[in-house]
């Protein structure tokens, strides 16, 4: 009887291992990232490539959660082996990838072996020996709803505050060491260095390197092993251990979000004075020469509005200029500091991120119609605002510079954007189409109020629209800010004529501005094609 039991257990183990092996494939496994509302999140494509270029069977689409469900009550070790550290390696029935032939044998022996045993036991089982096409079929094109999960500030805080991962060592006050570590090249092991925490991605890249596993392997091995150990310890609040838990849109929505996350403490500054040219001279022991006005950068407020540190600190938590030097350096991929701050297509740059923010509905009405590059004199001064009249009084010491930045930020006045009622007409009647339609009545003040409300909602909007009436320029563009801007017809001609430049005619200008803005702001009514909503038919 004892032998029989052992055998049975062995069968189960093997079948689990089969499952796990699929996950384990590591480099061989590619998650399908195509998103669809009703696809699966647990599809793992097993596709081992043979270097010989021989004809191969189609890849296998392995459904992981289907197998964990079928093998409920069993351990992960049914399919996954533990490495020497008593941690699961999430490859199928092996701890490392082998050659093509060996990998194939591991899969075939273990998958089919388990299926066969299950069948022999009279249980529902997967495809058996000889049913090659039952696994190797076109199912690899199965619709996928797999979704990347972002480890945002809320999720980070929940791990920071979790009691269950409090360090045993008393010298460690907080949870940081549970995940954060540095790689000690000499000892060839990871060590926790307080105050040196950074994002996983800084070392764990897209693929394996000599010093670090790929981000995919790391997240699965580290996160899952910890979650599993918590589960084993019967910790109630622990993270998911199935594919769906992290990678389905629905489950992601159900993850509890902490609204007001306390600031992450990692010795970061509140304010930074960005004056690289001057600091470069100071660093070389020379007298600083005034070039462009320094920027008082509000680090704290940017922390609040960013999802994670990585939004700006894409490669390390060092200051930007340590890689992006003023002239460009190999460390910074030869992207100079100026470019790192101003490249508009790059999300990590100041200008790029601000431009991206302008794409949100509240801003897009006006900003989507403006040029992507914002290189005008006034634009520069918005950030480069510290006017230094006497270079000799420029603070040389770092702490004095911080003080200057801090005081500049504190003195920044960001009043609610407002206007004088008398300057803003309540309604504007557009009567050019009198022949065919009634005059179109444009609710001018109502629109201004809506735009103002959107603007006053966030500090970035308020900061960049400090100038009174600057918001009016969304529509009253290409002319100086004024309470009495030129009429549209002044520049946009009424006659339909051949196009000679980019400037539209009056009809195009009106419709472009109105419909374009409604479209960008997601205002569905009136529909763009509902002419009579704006132009009442003549009775």
């Amino acid at each position, binding site marked *: 009887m004892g032998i029989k039991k052992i055998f049975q257990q062995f069968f189960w183990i093997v079948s689990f291992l089969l499952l796990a092996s699929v996950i384990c494939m590591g480099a061989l496994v590619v998650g399908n990232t195509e998103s669809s509302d009703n696809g699966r999140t647990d599809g793992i494509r097993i596709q081992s490539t043979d270097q010989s270029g021989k004809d191969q069977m189609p890849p296998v689409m392995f459904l992981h959660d289907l197998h964990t469900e079928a093998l409920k009550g069993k351990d992960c070790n049914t399919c996954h082996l533990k490495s020497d550290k008593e941690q699961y390696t999430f490859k199928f029935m092996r701890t490392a990838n082998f050659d093509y032939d060996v990998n194939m044998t591991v899969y075939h022996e273990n998958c089919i072996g388990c299926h066969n045993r299950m069948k022999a036991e009279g249980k529902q089982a997967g495809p058996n020996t000889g049913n090659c096409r039952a696994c190797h079929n076109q199912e690899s094109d199965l619709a996928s709803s797999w979704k990347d999960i972002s480890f945002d500030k809320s999720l980070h805080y929940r791990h920071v505050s979790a009691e269950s991962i409090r360090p045993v060592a008393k010298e460690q006050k907080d949870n940081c060491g549970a995940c954060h570590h540095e790689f000690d090249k000499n000892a060839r092991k990871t060590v926790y260095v307080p105050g040196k925490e950074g994002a996983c991605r800084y070392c764990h890249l897209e693929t394996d390197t000599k010093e670090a596993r790929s981000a995919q392997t790391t997240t699965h091995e580290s996160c899952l092993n910890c979650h599993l150990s918590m589960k084993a310890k019967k910790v109630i609040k622990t993270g998911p251990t199935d594919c769906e838990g992290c990678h389905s849109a629905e489950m992601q929505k159900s993850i509890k979000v902490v609204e007001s996350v306390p600031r992450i403490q990692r010795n970061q500054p509140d304010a930074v004075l960005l004056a690289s040219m001057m600091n470069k001279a100071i660093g070389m022991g020379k007298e600083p020469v005034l070039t462009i006005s320094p920027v008082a950068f509000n680090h704290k407020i940017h922390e609040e509005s960013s999802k994670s540190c990585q939004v700006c600190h894409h490669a390390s938590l060092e200051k930007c200029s340590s890689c992006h030097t003023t002239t460009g350096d190999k460390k910074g991929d030869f992207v100079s500091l100026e470019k790192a701050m101003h490249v508009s297509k790059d999300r990590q740059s100041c200008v790029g991120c601000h431009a991206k923010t302008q794409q949100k509905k509240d801003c897009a009405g006006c900003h989507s119609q403006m040029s992507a590059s914002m290189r005008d004199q006034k634009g520069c001064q918005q950030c480069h605002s510290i006017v230094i009249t006497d270079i000799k009084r420029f603070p040389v010491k770092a702490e004095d510079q911080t003080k200057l930045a801090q005081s500049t930020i504190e003195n920044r006045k960001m009043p609610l954007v407002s206007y004088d009622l008398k300057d803003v007409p309540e309604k504007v009647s557009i009567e050019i189409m009198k022949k065919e339609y009634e005059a179109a009545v444009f609710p001018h003040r109502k629109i201004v109020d809506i735009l103002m409300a959107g603007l006053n909602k966030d500090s970035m909007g308020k900061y960049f629209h400090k100038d009174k009436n600057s918001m009016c320029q969304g529509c009253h563009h290409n002319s100086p800010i004024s309470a009495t801007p030129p009429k549209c017809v002044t520049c946009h001609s009424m006659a*339909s004529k051949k*196009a000679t*430049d980019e400037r539209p005619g009056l009809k195009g200008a009106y*419709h472009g501005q109105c419909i374009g803005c409604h479209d960008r702001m997601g205002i569905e009514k009136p529909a763009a094609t509902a002419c009579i909503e704006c132009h009442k038919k003549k009775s």
Partner: protein
Amino acid sequence: MGISRRKFLGWFGGLSATAATAATSAIAGSNHHFKGHPDTMGVLHDINRCIGCRKCEEACNTVNELPKPEKPFDDLSVLDQKRRTHADVYTVVNQFQQGKEKVHVKKQCNHCMEPACASACFVKAFKKMPNGSVVYDESVCVGCRYCMIACPFNIPAYDYDSVLSPKVTKCTLCHPRVQKGLLPGCVEACPKEALIYGNRKELIKIARKRINKHPDQYIDHIYGEHEMGGTSWLYISGTPFSEIGMREDLGVKSAPELTSGPLSAVPIVVGLWPVLLTGVYAISKRKDKVAEEEKAEAVKAAENVAEEHLKNQIAKLKLEATKEKEAAIKKEVTKALEEAAKEAEKKAEAKAAEAAPEKKEDE
């Protein structure tokens, strides 16, 4: 002065006729690249701006005096189906769902710089005008509909319902209106200036400016700048063109350029083939003849040789026979002579015997 007006005009006419002939033959015979008429006009369709209101369709219907459709133009439910141009519909707007957004694309004749329809037409019913329009001359059309097959954009439609005088129909880029200084009907009607009419070169500059100004809103490509050797209609869009029903597999060579190579070989083939084949025929014919002659000669020669040989043989035989005969005769003669001699001897002996005693007596 020396030259009279009549003379001058005569010379001038002669000269231009020669030049025209030379130029025509040069284009037809080579892979000459036609860069288009200078200052040719066109339309820029900014697909991002199109809202699918069908005002252009309505204007097209009105200015071309086409029959009114079943459903009115303000009924936008027709956009639910993909449509194409027809005999009495020169332009259609199609709607494509792109995620949550709807993208609208106007479709009509693109007025190629070097039109495939014109190059396929053997009666020159289609003509590219210097102002960009590709116009159709009903009076010469024979109704072969090669143009419909040639068009890479599936535009020309055939008036199948007209029994007696069917014609090919398509957008004319409002050639008659443009000549009067008006804008094409669709362009004038577009409320959003999703269509603008102007100098093609200028339109390309405007399109480039828009793409550069909003690199995030447009695909970096002007459809029609190079497609099929370039078209008078140009398109810019934020959606890949292949996803909104526009072919991206057409290449950048115009239809005439693609066919001019093989077609330029036609005169050579037509001119040379008969000569060549006749020559081949004549040569092979002559070869046969010569062979025949040679054969006959050879047979004759062989016969001669055989005859001679026979003669020789006969002669030889004769000679031998003669010789044998002679030898036989000689032999016989000799024999006879010998016999005769013997006989004579015998006789003589006998005589002598008879006479011997007498002789002895004499001794």
